[in-house]
């Protein structure tokens, strides 16, 4: 399978569709609209990159996710703000003294999963907001090894969590109760099937085929692995700013892939091409 760069939008600047200082997280909703979080704002774009609406967040957003009801969850330092699809703040989640920097949000089985980069774990909360368990806290290193400062994960359709563990050059799979189900990945600075540098992959997402899409830093690139961890393709290398790192990813139901270039503050949209694209 292959991808082509279809579009770039956003970027650094003061125009309504641009970001001033930071672009941290991207997420797509059921309608294929892209929600991008940066600075202290959520910007909603249609698939063509046209800005539909935007609203302010209470703190700088670190991550974004859209639940089945279309509500937009924005991870921040110590809290998550929840907005209606129109941008009205309807709720928030805090866990004082426990929850740190929320660098990813996910949903599964009625529970909410928050990546806590301060603790270096993923925290699982029930629908009532109570903490059910942590994921990754049994790690010998005390949590995921994240020299980049970001824990990123995705929940697949089967409810399995895929977590990037960049310091160990791995993607790890966990059940919601924190049981390690498997892993793939190894260091390699030459073979693209491996993860290069000190600490990759930094971010990931999972498409509806169970394929794991990862982003790397130095030099920044995006790759796709099958559910067993076999490299399928390198989506893009040389497309992003060399200084970009922690590039968040989102994929819609058609396989259209969005990557947040954290240096240029652009959102790069890639479309799958070829027969295997929707296999």
């Amino acid at each position, binding site marked *: 399978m292959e991808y082509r760069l279809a579009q770039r939008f956003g970027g650094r600047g003061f125009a309504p569709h641009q970001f001033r200082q930071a672009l941290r997280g991207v997420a797509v909703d059921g309608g294929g609209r892209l929600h991008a979080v940066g600075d202290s704002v959520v910007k909603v774009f249609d698939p063509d990159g046209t800005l539909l609406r935007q609203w302010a967040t209470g703190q700088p957003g670190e991550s974004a996710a859209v639940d089945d009801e279309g509500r937009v969850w924005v991870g921040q330092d110590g809290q998550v703000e929840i907005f209606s699809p129109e941008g009205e703040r309807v709720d928030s989640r805090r866990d004082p003294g426990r929850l740190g920097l929320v660098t990813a949000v996910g949903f599964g089985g009625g529970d909410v999963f928050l990546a806590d980069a301060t603790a270096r774990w993923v925290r699982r909360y029930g629908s009532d907001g109570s903490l059910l368990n942590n994921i990754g806290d049994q790690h010998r290193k005390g949590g995921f*090894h994240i020299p980049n400062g970001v824990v990123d994960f995705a929940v697949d359709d089967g409810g399995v969590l895929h977590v990037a563990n960049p*310091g160990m050059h791995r993607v790890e799979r966990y059940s919601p109760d924190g049981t390690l189900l498997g892993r793939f990945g190894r*260091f390699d*600075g*030459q073979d693209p099937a491996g993860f290069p*540098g000190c600490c990759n992959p930094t971010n990931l997402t999972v498409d509806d085929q169970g394929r794991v899409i990862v982003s790397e830093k*130095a030099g920044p690139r995006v790759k796709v692995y099958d559910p067993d961890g076999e490299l399928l393709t390198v989506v893009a290398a040389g497309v992003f700013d060399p*200084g970009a*790192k922690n590039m968040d990813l989102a994929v819609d139901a058609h396989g259209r892939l969005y990557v947040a270039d954290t240096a240029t503050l652009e959102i790069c949209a890639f479309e799958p091409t070829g027969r295997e694209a929707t296999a």
Partner: protein
Amino acid sequence: MSKKHTRREVLGHAARGTALAGLGGLTGLLWMKANATFAWSINAQRCINSRLGAVGVEVCERCATECVLSLSAVRAVNEFKACGRCYICPAYFQITSAVGSDGLPTEKVCPRDAIKREAIGWIDPDDPANNFYEYTIDETLCNGCGRCVLECKEPAGLGSIRLEVRHDTCLDCNRCAIAQACPEDAFDRPEPT
């Protein structure tokens, strides 16, 4: 009965006092200048090896090659609190070199093997990736070439390694050869304020 001073006398005293104070200040300033310690230092925001945003540049080794000492007075320093203690450190390993049977890169960055790598904490002997590692620079070997500094820089690393002048060996030359050769004017000797 107190003596009355004329206006002329008052102004004269004031002028003499002001002149004396000025002369004292000038003397003090000259004394400070004469006895001040001017120290050569490296401005990390200018040095091409450590300056953020300078990605994909060639290493500058002038700190190692231009010093009049046989072993430069410049050393690399790893600030441990900023170090990620990575399994694969890009400042230690040549990360684009071939991977050996142990899963590690086969080549190192430092041409003088001045960086020491040691697993720390509760060590997992079965899974080396499952350990933290401490990277210590042997200052008897380091010549300040800056290669590790460049490789440690963001975004590849965390920028925990920087170059410093070791003042116990620096000769404090008035016309420092490194400063004259530095293409970024990063090697300077700021005057004390």
